[in-house]
């Protein structure tokens, strides 16, 4: 059985296909990432999987339960961290978790023990009695992750878990996600529009754009598909160098840009010593040589023809933030 299985899933909003004939699966214990820009259909997919939105067509199963026929079983099986914050900031961290645990019907002894466990996991145990309104953005996120784990779900959804957080906080949250994936042996479906996030966290990544899933593979394989490595070098005469390298079949393109020579090659690690020797044998001085491997950014560009835009949060989030600061006064 797969943790999640989706077949030809489509969701339309007034004719607009927010999710357009998507199929994929997530294995037990796997971290699967949906990578795509704002409006790609990531949240819509998660809403269908968490039974808060109906699909227009297609089929989706979570832990073997069909989302439209067994919503109750699905809800018990999943934990979810929403894109927008969903905490009651008038309650303490512990009260938020206790509320959740009771809502999910957990018994008192289990509740207490589990709250301690998940708060320790995200390093908030010391802050358990602080009202959430005094929490920072990163702490709120960690608390929400802890809450998502409270009722021992088999599958965890993380919708843009590090959206709008600073670099240091993001890295910390990544560590927590890796740790909980290992400790709780839980399958994770996360969505993101950050390349580095998909790259560091996910076992497999699906690239989604305008409701369509374009390709799914391991991050490394995706990068290999775009292919080749790029060597850039600065030599005393770029023109001479171009002539020297023009006949090798492992070089697929040569370009001079800003006095720099760009070579698209296979197995760059092996080619660098060769290129340096070649230049020296022909009395050319090598000032600098650099190697760049393709990133998921290149992969995205390759499959969509566009770069991924990083926009500042949704408008709803901005409004919430405003009201939140107003209510605190």
């Amino acid at each position: 059985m797969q943790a999640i299985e989706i077949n030809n899933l489509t969701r339309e909003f007034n004719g607009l296909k927010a999710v357009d004939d998507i199929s994929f699966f997530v294995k037990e214990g796997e971290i699967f990432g949906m990578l795509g820009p704002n409006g790609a259909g990531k949240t819509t997919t998660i809403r269908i999987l968490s039974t808060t939105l109906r699909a227009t067509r297609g089929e989706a199963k979570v832990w073997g339960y069909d989302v439209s026929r067994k919503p109750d079983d699905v809800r018990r099986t999943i934990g979810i961290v929403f894109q927008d914050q969903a905490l009651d900031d008038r309650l303490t961290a512990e009260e938020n978790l206790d509320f959740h645990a009771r809502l999910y019907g957990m018994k008192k002894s289990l509740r207490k023990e589990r709250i301690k466990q998940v708060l320790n996991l995200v390093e908030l145990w010391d802050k358990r009695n602080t009202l959430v309104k005094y929490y920072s953005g990163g702490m709120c996120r960690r608390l929400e992750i802890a809450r998502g784990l409270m009722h021992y779900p088999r599958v965890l959804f993380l919708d843009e878990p590090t959206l709008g957080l600073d670099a240091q906080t993001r890295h910390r949250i990544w560590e927590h996600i890796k740790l909980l994936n290992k400790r709780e042996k839980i399958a994770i479906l996360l969505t993101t529009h950050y390349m580095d996030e998909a790259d560091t966290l996910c076992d497999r990544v699906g690239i989604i754009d305008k409701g369509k899933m374009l390709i799914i593979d391991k991050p490394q394989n995706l990068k290999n598909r775009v292919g080749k490595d790029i060597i850039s070098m600065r030599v005393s005469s770029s023109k001479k160098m171009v002539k020297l390298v023009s006949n090798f079949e492992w070089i697929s393109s040569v370009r001079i840009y800003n006095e720099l020579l760009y070579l698209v090659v296979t197995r760059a690690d092996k080619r660098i010593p060769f290129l340096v020797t070649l230049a020296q044998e022909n009395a050319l001085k090598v000032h600098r040589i650099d190697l760049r491997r393709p990133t998921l950014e290149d992969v995205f560009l390759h499959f969509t023809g566009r770069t991924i835009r990083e926009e500042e949060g949704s408008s709803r989030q901005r409004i919430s933030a405003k009201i939140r600061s107003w209510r605190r006064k």
Partner: protein
Amino acid sequence: MRGISIQAIYVLWLRELKTFFRARSRIIGNVAQPFFFLAVLGVGFRSSMRFTIPEMEGLDYLQFLIPGLVGMTLLFSSMFAGLSVLWDRQFGFLREIMVAPVSRLSLVLGRIAGGMTTTILQALSILLVAHLFGFRLKGPLEFLLSVILMIIIGVGFVGMGVAFASKMEDMHGFQIVMNFIIMPIFFLSGALFPLQGLPSWLGFLTYINPLTYGVDALRGIMLDVSHFPLIVDFAVLISFSLSMLIIGAYLFSRCEV
């Protein structure tokens, strides 16, 4: 997700109470408003106002006003409690509640139970303030009947608040409900003036207003003067509450987050 979960109802009730006692400014606001009405209107009109209607002869305006202000508190705080669905939606917390493996009916009942409790606490605090102004209930039976009445009225308006909040997308709706629903219900309820001898258009508006029957029944129990027979008041209020409960639960169960 069918059926009712007692634990879910309990935890929603608990949350309502915890947050209620933490929001000092809200409590003070909700109690201060009727207090000012009592102090200014009640004391102000007391000396100059005489009821000319035979059955109210000799009744002090301050005494007359107190059940009206209890009704006012019931209306405002229970509508606010119902409309707090809007806050939960705005702050995203509604998603957390809606995605739990619990029936929507339990969620509505939990909210109504919580809202009704905090409403009654506030209504009772008005009676306490009234006590300072020399207002006394006749006995424990009257007290008990008053509380039962408060529960019925409270449930109705929390349900109404939930119903409105379920149909609204954001907080802008709150002002609209405040100005076009809550305020008219209050002013056209007979909370501030007696129902006898009203011009027919005003009489009609008060007769279709559920709070009219609430205030009237409160007066009947607390002061022994009522416009309608108590049995009529109770019949109207119970039907109002039940319909609001059903409509609120229905609309909430269909609202999207």
